């Protein structure tokens, strides 16, 4: 879904390298949401996800000359973001759950359950090893296809599917209380 923009991305990169700084803003606006969401699911902290996303874009801009036009911009900047997230994770002591404010305003009962479900999902995702957390995040929170995930992570699509299967099995155990609920 996000990767349908290859041509537009490349054009923006070229314009940016041509000195048109505003062209980079197009890329920021296009990818800040998926990248932020992926960062959030990898890190589990809203502020750190925001910082990691910002750092990734700034570093991408600074190293735009190293971008290989034969690969996708999203894949490239994702790898930068991943490094940012790994760095942030090393500095983390414990995972803190989402605050109610981050999860949005709640209506009465349904909303409370929704918040609890989101917390449970995030807790379960954070309990996965990074290899599994990454594929789950890219697939379900980044909306990427197996092939796109494979290209982004530099692993075979078969490995992506295998990891997804294992990750979901583990999540099924930790989310058993929520499985089947609407």
């Amino acid at each position: 879904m996000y990767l349908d923009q290859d041509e537009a991305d490349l054009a923006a990169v070229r314009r940016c390298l041509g000195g048109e700084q505003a062209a980079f803003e197009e890329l920021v606006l296009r990818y800040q949401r998926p990248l932020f969401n992926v960062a959030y699911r990898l890190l589990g902290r809203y502020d750190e996800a925001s910082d990691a996303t910002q750092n990734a874009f700034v570093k991408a801009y600074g190293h735009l000359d190293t971008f290989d036009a034969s690969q996708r911009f999203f894949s490239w900047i994702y790898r930068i973001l991943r490094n940012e997230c790994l760095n942030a994770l090393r500095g983390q002591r414990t995972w803190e759950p989402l605050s109610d404010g981050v999860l949005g305003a709640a209506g009465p009962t349904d909303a409370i359950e929704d918040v609890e479900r989101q917390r449970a999902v995030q807790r379960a995702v954070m309990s996965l090893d990074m290899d599994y957390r990454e594929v789950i995040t890219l697939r379900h929170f980044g909306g990427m296809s197996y092939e796109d995930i494979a290209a982004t992570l530099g692993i075979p699509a078969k490995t992506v599917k295998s990891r997804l299967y294992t990750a979901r099995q583990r999540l099924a155990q930790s989310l058993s209380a929520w499985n089947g609920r609407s």
Partner: protein
Amino acid sequence: MKPVEYGEMGSEEQQRVADLLDGVGTIDPPADLSSRIMTKIAEHEDDGDRLLFTSTVGGHRMMKKVVGGIAVAAALLLITMAVTGYPPTGKGAEGAIGAAKRYHADQIKTDDVKTQDAELQAFLQTDTFQKLIADKTVRNALKHKEVRQALADPAVRVALASPAVQEAFANGAVEQALESSAVLQVLSASQIQSVLASQSVQSVLASQGARAAFASPQVVAVLASQPALQSAVASQAFQAALESSAFQAALANQAFMGIMNNQALQVAFATPQFAAALGSSELMRALSSASFVNALSSSAMTQALQSQSQATPQ
């Protein structure tokens, strides 16, 4: 029942988990995230970290990145070590270059930072340290015992807390700079380390003009090749001159940099007489004048300075 294929929604359980994950949805990023990113990028541009596009051939980019502030960024990085003598200034080039190259050693482990110092323990809990530790270059630096020991010094902690040093750490150009043999050669010179450790020079380096001046590859190259010039730079007269905006402008002048490459002039500049003359406001003003710089670059002036420096005992 259809056999379950890895990653496909072949089982009910897999499907339920997938639905649950998909049902969580996405979270809105901060409303000001894009503007913060673009502001940060604009700040980097202002600091001289610019991308210059040179040409496009057959759809492939051929561009050159002109990194402003490499020398200054690297200098700021090493200020923290120079302040406390890490690497020891008596060690010479070998120590500093070795230390810089060891940046590519094994990963630091939590247990590596062992200290009985309560103040240092407190520093390790600060936001400053947390920000620094998140940076790859800093983590690489912290792999080295010398750097970790340097952290025990309060002066180093003050330096680390300064925005200029943090900015330098955050700049990817630092790593590039440390791979430059010319920069390493300059930074490893004991004279240069003592200059960097000087409070007045550190304050001067905080100014945009001085940063631009010392970002010049020519300055780095000339300093690397001329030990005599390193001594001149270490002189009090030079450090005082450095605070002059006119001298900073002269250093940033391409024509001036051009004449700095002139060997005869380098020898002349390294003389005590020239160092003393640097203290004069008249010479400062003259150096920032294009006509004076042009006159200096004339062959007649070069010959005159050469003969003068040869006659002057050093």
